């Protein structure tokens, strides 16, 4: 099964831990938590790969990165070749290596995982991505101008990937973004300590400069221009506007002061750099007792940002508390494993099998706490997960002066304003073909969270890539919609 240079004994050992900032230190700052492998570590970990003839890891990757091949190159110390193999499928490895849920994708299928620990594919991907960020061994190349114009709406991973692939083919691409910076959730949602903004900006600037992609920030499609106006001025339009609309629970007290969506909290912290207030103008309030509702990546990011704001402001041990309130148990936590572990290490208090039924306030409309009920797991529901059911009479209160709702998001309908013919599902997602990204409206494609609902960076990139291939075919081959 394995080829020569790979040491079978090594494969049985544990995967190499990645150095991290120690938890007592890192909760005082917003610097990156995970520090990445050194070259020696990366080469050593690469040596654990068995180089399977029929690699299962690849089947777990939404964009089909040629995992054994890039790891082989890495193990042989040939970084440039590793980058080339990586980039043939994934343009943003430095980002994906940091945020993909590898434990349920590639690493879940690694055969080593059956007996020992799977190869740390994500950490190796990150290493390759970081190497390329500094050395740029594989410049983006552009074919000659086709004279075709494509509008991409939204600059998150779906829009960026689609734009880059189309620009490489020689189409003129303009990205329209409603916020003042490009990057989507990568800049407004995921915090600096998990994904440094310098990395996102470097990737975007590099693509823009190499391929001449225009990014029009401050352009809210549906308001600044309508979708139909874009269609009249471009040959095709790709919608990658994500799922940015926050949901609030339908419980009493939701409008009290101190209750906010995770989107608001994270936008204040990340997009507006509220953690640097007052050097930056936008304030962000975190009280002494924070309750974050939900246990996805968004909830972990909000809770861990709160902790850092509290520690940064008032020093340690001053009675500050951050709770995560989740209606299922630890096993069902949807966040990346690494984020859950880091959150636990950092001292976030987890209230599992707990669900809020009301928010308590004082006479000045300020939050004072959360009334919760205990849950137990019942029969599996449609999704196969065991459904949480409330335990009668188990209500209790948690004191809180800040409540952050991280309950999932849905597509923002603003982009459809005044445009007809684009069909949507009941939950607000756009109907689009999985393989091509074609919507029900002629010359309009869509992909990423706008189609799937809140999902992952890599699945959004995959959708952007597939749509770009179909748009290219449409523009250059047959121009047929049907």
């Amino acid at each position, binding site marked *: 099964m394995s080829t020569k240079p790979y040491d079978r004994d090594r494969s049985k050992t544990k995967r190499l831990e990645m150095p991290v900032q120690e938890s007592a230190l890192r909760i005082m700052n917003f610097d990156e938590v995970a520090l990445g492998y050194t070259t020696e570590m990366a080469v050593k970990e690469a040596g654990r790969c068995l180089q399977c003839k029929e690699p299962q890891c690849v089947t777990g990757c939404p964009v089909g990165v040629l995992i054994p091949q890039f790891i082989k190159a890495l193990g042989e110390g040939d970084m440039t070749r590793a980058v080339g193999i990586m980039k043939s499928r994934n343009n943003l490895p430095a980002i994906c290596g940091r945020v993909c849920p590898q434990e349920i994708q590639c690493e879940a299928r690694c055969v080593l995982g059956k007996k020992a620990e799977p190869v740390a594919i994500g950490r190796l991907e990150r290493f390759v991505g970081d190497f390329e960020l500094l050395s740029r061994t594989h410049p983006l190349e552009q074919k000659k101008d086709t004279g075709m114009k494509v509008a991409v709406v939204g600059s998150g991973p779906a829009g960026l990937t689609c734009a880059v692939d189309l620009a490489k083919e020689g189409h003129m691409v303009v990205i329209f973004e409603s916020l003042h910076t490009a990057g989507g959730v990568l800049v407004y949602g995921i915090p600096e300590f998990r994904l440094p903004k310098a990395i996102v900006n470097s990737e975007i600037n590099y693509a823009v400069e190499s391929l001449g992609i225009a990014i029009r920030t401050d352009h809210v499609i549906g308001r*600044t221009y309508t979708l139909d106006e874009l269609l009249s001025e471009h040959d095709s339009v790709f919608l990658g506007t994500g799922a940015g609309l926050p949901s609030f629970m339908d419980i009493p007290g939701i409008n009290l002061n101190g209750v906010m969506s995770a989107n608001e909290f994270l936008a204040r912290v990340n997009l507006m750099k509220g953690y640097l207030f007052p050097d930056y103008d936008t304030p962000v309030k975190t009280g002494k007792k924070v309750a974050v509702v939900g246990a996805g990546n968004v909830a972990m990011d909000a809770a861990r940002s709160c902790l850092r704001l509290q520690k940064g402001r008032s020093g340690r041990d001053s009675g500050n508390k951050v709770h995560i309130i989740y209606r299922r148990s630890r096993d069902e936590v949807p966040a990346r494993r690494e984020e859950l572990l880091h959150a636990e290490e950092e001292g976030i208090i987890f209230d599992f099998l707990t669900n809020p039924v009301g928010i308590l306030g004082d006479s000045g409309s300020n939050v004072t706490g959360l009334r919760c009920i205990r849950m137990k797991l019942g029969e599996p529901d449609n999704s196969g997960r065991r459904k949480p059911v409330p335990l009668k009479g188990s209500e209790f209160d948690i004191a809180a002066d800040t409540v952050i709702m991280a309950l999932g998001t849905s597509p923002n309908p603003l982009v459809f304003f005044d445009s007809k013919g684009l069909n949507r599902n009941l939950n607000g997602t756009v109907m689009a073909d999985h393989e091509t990204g074609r919507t029900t409206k002629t010359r309009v494609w869509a992909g990423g969270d706008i189609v799937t609902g809140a999902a992952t960076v890599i699945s959004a990139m995959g959708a952007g890539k597939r749509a770009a291939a179909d748009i290219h075919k449409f523009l250059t081959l047959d121009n047929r919609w049907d």
Partner: protein
Amino acid sequence: MYRIIEKQSLSDITKLMVIHAPHVVRNAKAGQFVIVRINEYGERIPLTIADFDPISGNITLIFQEVGKSTKHLGSLNAGDEVATFAGPLGHASEIDYYGTVICIGGGVGIAPIFPIARALKQAGNIVISIIGARSQSFLFWEEKMRSVSDELIVCTDDGSYGRKGLVIEPLKELLEARASGINRIWAIGPGIMMKSVSMTTRPYNANTIVSLNTIMIDGTGMCGGCRVLLDEGASFVCVDGPEFDGHKVNWDMLLSRMQFYRPEERLALEHWEHKCNLEASIDERGK
């Protein structure tokens, strides 16, 4: 970057700025707003569109210098640039022929009420306007308002100009005199003024539209920070508004939410003024 074309002082604390932003002008309508961010460090400031010119691509904004951001914006001059200018946001005012309408502008609210009054007048309505301010030095655009109104009433709280008293006093008289003859009322100004207008018109069942200026971040429905509680539930001011039926708004909740960041706003202002003073004294010494 978006260039400031012109700057005027309308009163001691009220500034007018004309900013070149053709992308925003193209679809701009009365009642909508924009989001401005001064520079990399700035916050996103929502400001109602006071006027716009499709030919030049310029937008006119009028704002009162109250906190750090508006003072900083007011310190910029023609030729300077701002980093962000996004819009037009929110829904346009529902301009139609209603019959007789009253347009009320309080303080800096005189600016956004102007294009609405103008559009209502153009739609054939009889427009009665009431503008008010703390004192004469805070009043502006009286002539502009008169030019689009069939009747204009001017008040000041201290009686330094026009009628002494609040805008709700002449409003009440108008409603008493011809309640059934008033088909719609628009009121824009400080929260407390819009609340008192809504309370005044409620007993007469007079359809009252207010334009809410809540705290915002993105202005596109993404954060929910702008939410307001209406009779029928929560609504986002930036995408569902900014105009709402004043009789449905939970005013106490709204006014309290608008106070929430006061301590931080004060801190930001102190921090900025301190920095300005430092820079000034360094300049001084440089000379």
